């Protein structure tokens, strides 16, 4: 009690100094949290991806399509439960700034394979009945104010022309990590349209999605799929959906590394500031520490006083920074539109923020603590007056 009282009052002795240092920690911890969350958002797609679904694509590059006839051959491979397909559309909604992914999917099978996309049954039925229908994510609809029945025009970049789709359903994510900014329409519709404009792309798709019976056997089945098409016109590369998604992220790995680095640098900088604050405070109080030691208190008591004060300030700052991360992250993502489909402050980020606060407090106290603990009483007392 007495000890805590001393720590509390000591930390409030220089109110401005403590306030400024605390503010610095708040901002640093907040920045750290936001940057970590950005990194998490970057990997969100890969993290939410299933390890039991497989993705088959053209072995040369994703930009080359695969013949749709592969689908039946894949289905016959032992262990394959179902096969579906998706094709990247790459359309622009009004302006390039409004980025969200659109896929031409096999309507009959796709949503069975993705139980995390939850669609009201009547809406799914309506979608299946409408050739030009589409299903959009909840967050996407929210961003652009779309309702069921609205017509969404997309300007094709891969497939020229303006394409109009009618929203027949809005899906919701089953989990908080589910991407809710996707846009799905009928592959059949795309295929028919291509007959007129880009006949070389008719009856092809970008990827096949494979659901397997036994999640343990994904590697084996992936090898079997690729073996089936070896030496054919379009060889395939099959991997888990997770690996497929990570492949995209790895292209931007350098940016992620840079963001991570900056987030830790921010902590290191504030650590230096905090260490300076503690050194200043401890230096001013050498005579008090010498007095405490003269009276009979152990050097450890003096060290703990400094450590306690340091931790009190840094934990207060990091707790506040942590608490602020949530509203600020919310504000941030609401301004960023659909760029980050999943933007969530994870429990791990919060744990890291608190750990950073604790670390700042402990490390900042080391040098002043050792110095004050070691101060020779006779010399420390001279520091008065």
């Amino acid at each position: 009690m007495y000890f805590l009282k001393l720590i509390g009052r000591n930390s409030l002795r220089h109110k401005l100094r403590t306030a400024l240092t605390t503010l610095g920690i708040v901002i640093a911890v907040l920045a750290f949290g936001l940057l970590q969350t950005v990194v998490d958002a970057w990997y969100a797609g890969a993290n939410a991806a299933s390890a039991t679904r497989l993705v088959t694509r053209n072995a040369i590059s994703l930009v080359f399509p695969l013949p749709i006839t592969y689908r039946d051959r894949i289905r016959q491979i032992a262990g394959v439960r179902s096969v579906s397909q998706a094709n990247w559309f790459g359309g622009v909604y009004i302006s390039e700034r409004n980025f969200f992914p659109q896929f031409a999917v096999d309507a009959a099978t796709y949503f069975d394979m993705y139980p995390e996309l939850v669609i009201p049954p009547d809406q799914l039925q309506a979608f299946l009945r409408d050739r030009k229908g589409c299903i959009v994510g909840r967050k996407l609809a929210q961003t652009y104010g779309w309702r069921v029945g609205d017509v969404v025009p997309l300007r094709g970049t891969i497939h020229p022309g303006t394409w109009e789709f009618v929203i027949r359903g809005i899906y919701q994510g089953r989990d908080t990590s589910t991407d809710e900014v996707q846009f799905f329409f009928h592959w059949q519709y795309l295929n028919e349209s291509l007959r007129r404009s880009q006949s070389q792309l008719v009856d092809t798709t970008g990827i096949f999605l494979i659901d397997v019976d036994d999640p343990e056997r994904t590697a084996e089945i992936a090898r079997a799929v690729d073996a089936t098409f070896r030496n054919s016109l379009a060889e395939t590369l099959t991997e888990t959906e997770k690996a497929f998604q990570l492949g995209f992220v790895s292209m931007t790995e350098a940016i992620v590394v840079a963001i991570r680095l900056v987030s830790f640098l921010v902590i290191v900088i504030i650590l230096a500031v905090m260490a300076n604050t503690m050194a200043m405070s401890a230096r001013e109080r050498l005579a008090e520490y010498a007095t405490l030691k003269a009276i009979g208190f152990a050097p450890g008591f003096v060290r703990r006083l400094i450590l306690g004060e340091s931790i009190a300030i840094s934990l207060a700052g990091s707790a506040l920074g942590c608490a602020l991360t949530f509203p600020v992250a919310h504000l941030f993502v609401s301004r960023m539109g659909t760029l980050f489909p999943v933007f969530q402050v994870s429990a791990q980020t919060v744990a890291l923020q608190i750990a950073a606060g604790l670390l700042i407090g402990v490390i900042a106290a080391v040098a002043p603590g050792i110095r004050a603990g070691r101060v020779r009483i006779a010399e420390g007392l001279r520091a008065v007056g």
Partner: protein
Amino acid sequence: MMIEARNLSKSYRRGGQVVPVLSAIDLDIGAGEFVALMGPSGSGKSTLLNLIAGIDKPSAGVLRVNGLDIASLGEAQLADWRARAVGFIFQFYNLLPVLTAFENVELPLLLTRLTRRERREHAETALAMVGLSDRMKHYPSELSGGQQQRVAIARAIITDPEILVADEPTGDLDRVSAAEVLDLLERLNAQMGKTIVMVTHDQRAAEAAHRLIHLDKGVLINGRHAEAAHDAPASS
């Protein structure tokens, strides 16, 4: 003997040089004595006091306090001994500014096994003894110099130590406050039998003591007995 110094020396090493501060001090101070230590600035008064109080270590010689060879104690043992046996009074009071008068006085008792309630009773008694019962909740910055020094004296006696060491306790006080502090020290000596060693430049303070010890350049000059000082008609 409460304090016995034999051939006590202290020197500091500065650069490559050894600077002698105290040379071959022989000194006996009996239990219940009130001794004033005088001498020019830099003569080693504070150094000698620090040795006696166990906050500095002699370079050579023997120093026994109440029969205990304190020079042979380790850091932690010495700290324990100080907590029990020595009360400190400083020129600049050295109260903790973030603690009230009451809390400052209570502070040394945190090193004892006393309960919270016992601590409170002791601290209240000590503050009453120095006449500051009505200032318990005041912070040092809200007290005059004389009041602060009385709080410091209450803190020094709270653990009922054998020895009080005071380094220029009136050095920063006006005449009236100094007189109050000296009066208090005399009472502690006379009524409670505390052995007091006090460094001072102040002739009036020296007169409160029973015995004067003079230091000059680290050497003890004489040990005139108190009666002589007291019997002499006011010389100042």
